[in-house]
């Protein structure tokens, strides 16, 4: 008995200490993450509208009505029409913007292969490639707004000069028009993130490939292209998979900042993404319930995309 007492005492102190250390983070976690997550779910079953957030709140329980409004359809003059056609349009915009993902990934891989050589000055190039990622803020969006200027922007100038070289009367593109704003956003964000996180991840993956594999391929007389498809590509497939999953997850939540700076989600909603629609519902129109409902729908999408990726993408991946 006498031997056990100090031991249990020590244990008590340890537990007390553990909780004490955990406390600040735990409070923050509860107040700013866990509680809001459940409140958000709860709110999506309510209509909570009003310009002022007065107390008591102007809340009424509507059951699944928000979700029906979001995902449902109704018959109108013989045709089937979505209850919220805007939502489907913006969902389409969000998915359209993801077309850029494979290009961005291929670009990041090419840059990583270029940098994966022990040459003089390679760090300088890595720094330059990383630079746009570092600058990515509203500043970059403003810069691209100016680059996309129809009359005086450098891209249209370049197109006109190119046209002059081949005697074509090219006039350039209205980059921020309804047809072009989504490709414009893809180009701008690809430029921004090309040499960033994904490139570094690929670089790390390339550096982890054992040299022996290439030596064996050399002995077999493989060409560079053969070496890429037979050695490099399978060895980096887990990284490719990881980047793809993260890009899709990011893609569902993306597009807000460029859309806000370029055209405030316009013209005519052409650049409004899911995230932007949540922002509008919440911040502009104060439809708190509907915004929460949208956010939860986005969560389900992300969860689903992750599951599909893990379920089917796993077959394409070579794990050693």
């Amino acid at each position, binding site marked *: 008995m006498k031997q056990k007492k100090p031991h249990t005492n020590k244990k008590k*102190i340890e*537990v007390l*200490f*553990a909780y004490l*250390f*955990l406390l600040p*983070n735990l*409070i*923050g*976690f509860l107040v*700013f*993450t*866990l*509680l*809001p*997550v459940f409140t*958000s779910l709860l*709110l999506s079953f309510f209509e909570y509208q009003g310009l002022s957030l007065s*107390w008591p*709140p102007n809340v009424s329980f509507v059951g699944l009505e928000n979700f029906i409004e979001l995902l449902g359809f109704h018959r109108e003059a013989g045709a089937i029409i979505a209850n919220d056609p805007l939502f489907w349009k913006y969902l389409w915009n969000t998915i359209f913007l993801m077309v850029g993902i494979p290009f961005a990934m291929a670009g990041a891989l090419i840059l990583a292969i270029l940098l994966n*050589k*022990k040459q003089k000055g390679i760090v300088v*190039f890595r*720094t*330059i490639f990383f*630079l746009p990622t*570092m*600058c*990515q*803020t*509203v500043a970059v969006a*403003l810069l691209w707004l100016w680059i996309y200027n129809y009359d*005086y922007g*450098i891209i249209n100038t370049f197109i006109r*000069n190119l046209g002059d070289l081949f005697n074509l*009367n090219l006039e350039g593109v209205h980059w921020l028009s309804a047809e072009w704003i989504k490709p414009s956003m893809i180009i701008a964000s690809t*430029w921004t993130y090309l*040499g960033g*996180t994904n490139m*570094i*991840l690929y670089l*790390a993956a390339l550096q982890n490939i054992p040299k022996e594999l*290439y030596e064996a391929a050399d002995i077999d007389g493989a060409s560079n292209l053969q070496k890429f498809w037979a050695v490099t590509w399978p060895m980096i497939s887990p*990284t490719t998979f*990881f980047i793809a999953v993260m890009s899709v997850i990011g893609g569902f*939540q993306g597009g*807000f*900042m460029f859309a*806000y700076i370029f055209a405030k989600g316009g013209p005519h909603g052409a650049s409004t993404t899911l995230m932007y629609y*949540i922002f509008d519902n*919440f911040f502009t129109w104060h439809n*708190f319930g509907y*915004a*929460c409902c949208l*956010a*939860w729908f*986005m*969560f389900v999408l*992300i*969860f689903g995309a992750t599951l599909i990726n893990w379920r089917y993408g796993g077959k394409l991946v070579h794990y050693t």
Partner: protein
Amino acid sequence: MSDNKVDLSKIKVLNRKKPGEKVSVGYYILLTLVACFMIVPLLWMISTSLKNPADVFVYPPKWIPDYNYIIEDGNKVEVNVINEVYEIKYISGALKGTKSTVPKGNIDVEWRRWWTPWDKVNLVNTSKNKKFPRWDEVEILSGVATLDILFVKDGVTNFRTKEVSVDKVFKGVRPVWKNYSKVIEVMPFLRFYWNSFIVSVLITFGQVLTSAMAAYSFSRLNFPGRDKLFLGYLATMMIPYAVVLVPVYILMNWLNWVDTFRALIIPGMFSAYGTFMLRQFFMTIPVDLEDAAKIDGCNFLRIFWNIILPLSKPALATLTVFTLLGSWMSFMWPLIVTNSVSMKTLPVGLAYFQDTGFGTQYELLMAGAFMAIIPLVIMFVFTQRFFVEGIKMQGLKG
């Protein structure tokens, strides 16, 4: 032992002779091209930020901000070209080889395309499309220009008109630094800076501290419910930010924190991801060190402070750098919780700057944008290593 040594040296020789390490000139050209693609937009930002407002909307665009001058009595004198008569020779296009004399108003002399060398070639619009002209190259043989001459002597500015021959007018390079001071004048830009600075620093301090303490608890101490709680942390990492946005805003409103530093800072001070990352790192530190310290009578606080923290400097630095960057760039949350101009952070301030009538004054917008990215670029140059390591750590997670 000796066998090992022989093997090692052989491998090194093999590596050095590996054909894959040889690179061609083409490789460097490709690298340089990509680097240009990355850097040209940034140079365009700097170029625009240093232009006269009158030079921003010119076609074709100028890359170097410039002015005209002549030399009089050995002094540079700034001039404005009003009217010129040139004798010109066409060196390309349909009129190739012919000469003619044309006043400036008729031929719209532009003195260069944006990629041709300075002053070598002049261009004449030969297409009917006024807005998007097609240029023929001409060579200026001689000419006389009537010039508005701007004298600046002893602080007094004088104008007079004078005829000067064209070959005596020079182009000088002059960046308009005034744009930067003007941005600070028309916008409380320094205030935005200060807000961004204080918000990012406090968020980072709070997040690193609370994450490290929680991570220590999760990785080193035993308490009931530890693993379940940690699982809860992990589960929330996948939930998108949008889900918590509305309730946290309502909470801020309820606490009357909207439009204060508290709303900008406090919700950002806690991070499940930071806790997770540090916990993973702490797990790799050998427990033996602590056991030795415990025998010496160290308490948990001292173990945390004197052993765990010093040993995890790289992980702490990585988290610090990432959090600083993330909070410096954060856009949506500051946009939502700030109303008054004096509370805006740099990104929100820039967007506000664009919205309040300066949206077409690109020289000012670009000056502001450049000022906003400078601290990030400086920070990056000094902390590059941590970025690279941090990103690799993220990759290992998956």
